[in-house]
């Protein structure tokens, strides 16, 4: 009988790894806590840097999911036992599933912007998150603020909940700079009259075609970039927001009112990731994500034999890198289960 793998988390990484593992002949069972597979990808209209539709990528991922993969949606894991190299996974229906290896793809949650009180999210009407702006794009409805007004000026605040010791997250979330640049250009497409401003500390345009998107944002779309981190936002009488920032390149304080303030919220290990780490006793790193056995060479291997990880469960990353990482995890698991000799390197 062929060996079996249980994949926990049906987002991008979970789907792509399941597809590869099943294609290689393993019995795959995939658990997803929500109703649908796709994770955060379901909430994103267009993807950086090309602005292609997120739904196209989802369609691709779904095509990989053959009929042999057993998918359990609306299913949470409550218990995991191991015995003689086998894992026994219990879900909240009290069903028990057996596997020779586990893959954890429980991913990330977005930072709760209410924790940065000085930006007024949850207090002021027109402070929204990058995810909420994406929901607006996805809905196809006109872009308006809470008062139903078409915004004339929108500010994007980088690094909300990332690179910030005050909230306990020192790391960079990697995707929010380029997302801000993407969203600012999209605003200009939807509302050519609306001014867009990005408030940043550093612009991290490291990926293929990121810098090109940035150039386009400046030249073609006229997005303005101001290097400085907001100290606070305050609501004015008409519901717009007065932001205060140091324009560090000019070396003078700057204030400006915007009709909509978009907070580029970062990544945190998801609740699912934290729960599974606890259930299994998986090591976590200083940022709370799952610790990998070696940062360079064993990025899908954990402290537990037979338990593997992929995607944003170990650190923030892009969709491209998540898909690659999922395939790498599938290869790693195949080597482990088939006892390929290359495995001996890992010890």
């Amino acid at each position, binding site marked *: 009988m062929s060996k079996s793998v249980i994949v926990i988390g049906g987002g991008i990484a979970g789907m792509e790894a399941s597809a590869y593992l099943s294609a290689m002949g393993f019995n795959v069972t995939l658990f997803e806590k929500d109703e649908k597979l796709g994770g955060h990808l379901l909430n994103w209209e267009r993807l950086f840097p090309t602005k292609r539709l997120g739904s196209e990528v989802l369609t691709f991922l779904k095509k990989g999911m053959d009929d042999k993969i057993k998918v359990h949606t609306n299913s949470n894991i409550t218990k995991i036992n191991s015995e003689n190299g086998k894992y026994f996974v219990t879900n909240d229906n009290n069903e028990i599933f057996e596997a020779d290896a586990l893959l954890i793809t429980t991913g990330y949650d977005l930072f709760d912007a209410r924790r940065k009180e000085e930006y007024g999210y949850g207090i002021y009407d027109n402070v929204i998150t990058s995810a909420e702006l994406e929901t607006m794009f996805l809905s196809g409805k006109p872009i308006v603020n809470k008062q139903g007004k078409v915004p004339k000026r929108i500010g994007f605040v980088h690094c909300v909940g990332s*690179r910030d010791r005050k909230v306990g997250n020192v790391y960079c979330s990697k995707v929010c700079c380029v997302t801000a640049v993407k969203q600012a250009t999209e605003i200009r497409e939807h509302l050519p009259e609306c001014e867009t401003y990005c408030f940043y*500390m550093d612009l991290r345009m490291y990926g293929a075609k990121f810098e090109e998107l940035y150039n386009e944002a400046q030249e073609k779309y006229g997005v303005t970039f101001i290097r400085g981190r907001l*100290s606070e936002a305050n609501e004015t009488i008409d519901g717009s927001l007065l932001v205060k920032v*140091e*324009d*560090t390149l000019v070396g003078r*304080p700057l204030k400006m009112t915007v009709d909509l303030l978009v907070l580029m919220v970062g990544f945190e290990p998801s609740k699912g990731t934290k729960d599974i780490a606890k259930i299994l006793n998986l090591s976590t790193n200083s940022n709370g994500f799952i610790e990998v056995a070696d940062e360079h060479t064993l990025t899908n291997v954990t402290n537990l034999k037979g338990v593997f990880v992929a995607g944003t469960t170990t650190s923030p990353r892009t969709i491209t890198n998540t898909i690659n990482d999922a395939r790498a995890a599938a290869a790693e698991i195949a080597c482990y289960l088939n006892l390929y000799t290359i495995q001996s390197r890992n010890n």
Partner: protein
Amino acid sequence: MADFGYKIQEDRQINYDSNDRTLFYFLKRVEPSISLCIGCGTCSATCTAGQFTQFDLHKIMLYVRRGEKVHIANEIKKCMLCGKCSLVCPKGINTRNIIFQTRKFIHSNK
């Protein structure tokens, strides 16, 4: 002599070979968090003193780092030690103590 409107220009370069960075090394010792500053300017944006005067904390810290001490003694007086800058700094830098220690240093080196 006829005045042609020319005068000898001061050298504007930051001279890293001759600058005196003792203040920075002193601060690094007594408040090591100073090294973490990325110049994001949040401290300056929140600073009450900075809104009405030329006072600009993140710039001062940069000058200190580069060993450009010329205006620091005068500038640092404008701070009211209210500590708002420490509250907002994303790097958790104890900016208030940096100012306090800078004043101490300048005082003892007079």
